């Protein structure tokens, strides 16, 4: 997802300043880095390849809600795979994983809030 995130940031270069934070580890979770970044942008999109019902995104969003609430200018956004088993067919798998197009569209929505 880091690659998708970086490409989305480039795609939006003329419209917004997008900062990409690659967490590298989810435990320990670099809370300071997350909150510092949020302090600069005031908007946050958590992007993960796993289904939205599971994964590390929940911990990140929880941290933001508890410790970064006052830094937010828009509700935090989660972009993740749908709540379904990972499908086998390549056509379905491609639709399952968050795409560059979807991330760009969601980021535009976040910026317009």
């Amino acid at each position, binding site marked *: 997802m880091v690659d998708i995130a970086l490409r989305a940031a480039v795609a939006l270069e003329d419209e917004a300043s997008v900062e990409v934070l690659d967490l590298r580890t989810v435990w320990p979770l670099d809370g300071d880095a997350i909150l510092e970044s949020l302090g600069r942008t005031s908007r946050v999109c958590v992007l993960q390849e796993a289904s939205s019902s599971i994964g590390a995104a929940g911990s990140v969003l929880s941290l933001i809600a508890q410790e970064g609430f006052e830094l937010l200018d828009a509700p935090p956004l989660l972009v993740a795979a*749908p*709540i*379904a*088993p990972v*499908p*086998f*067919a*390549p*056509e*379905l798998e*491609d*639709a*399952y994983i968050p795409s560059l197009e979807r991330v760009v569209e969601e980021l535009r929505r976040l910026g317009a809030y």
Partner: protein
Amino acid sequence: MRTDAGAGEALPCEDSGEVTREDRLALFRLVLLHRLIEERVGLLYRQGRVSGSVYTGRGQEAVGAAAGYALGPDDVCAPLNRELACHLARGVTTAEAFRNFLGKGDSPTRGRDGNMHFGAREHGVFPLVSMLGDLCPVVVGAALAFKRRREPRVALTFWGDGAMSTGDVHEGLNLAAVLKVPAVFVLQSNGWAYSTPTSRQMMNPCMADRVEGGWGIPATRVDGSDAVATLIALRGAIERARSGDGPQAVEAVTLRLDGHAAHDDGSYMDQAQLTEYAEQRDPVERLAARLRLDGLAEEVGVLRAAAADEVSSGLEAAEASPAPDPATILDGVYATKLT
């Protein structure tokens, strides 16, 4: 790795009046289709047209064929990844099998799953649970339902040397025995649990012994490369289960001729043993040899040509099928569609 048996070298299947000429020809069609579909799928995989991996039943075709063929029309079964012939015997078509391997939109799993991971509800075939051994309690549950409803139906599943060491198999066997349900367990003794030989899996390598002595379930052992002998053993077990004698087991002794799957070349296997099995005990050629002795050489040739045609036309039909529509990605996951 591929060691095709030379015609005429294979030991013929046993001869028995219990297995008619019609039965023998039907079994030959099934083992042949199983072999040919898997050979074709292997080629598709190497061409990058099949995702994931491919798990074959090469060397074990007669076991799934005999089990699927021996079951009655209202019985249910849960074949695993080495029992394609069982699916075919229950009415799954070559096109349906190819569609699942290719992840097509009209495949049995609508592209959600691939490989042998599919069932056919209309034919009483349960979908495969990937955690091998887990289907044991599933069919015990089905058999318990049949018993409680007083229906003369049987539930059958398979597992191998590896699954025999899992906990769910123990729970299922124990419950089946104490509840005396009409279940039949086919133990595929193919010598390997992935890359672990049976000798490093269990102290007593005779699974029939263990099932009979340990769980009190009558078990027989049969040469699983002999389709005729395997059919006789399975028919007996199925009818005993149906008539109220409780669960039954049949251990089919074979050899896995391929690696665990297409990504495993099986180089750790004893090559001389593989060659010997492929030359003398290839299940397809053993049955062909029996049919030639029965005076049915011409029918063997006709069936070989027909099976090749059935595989080609099945693949053609599957390739013409549409890909799954990405908009349907959540269909079939929830009873109520999520937004």
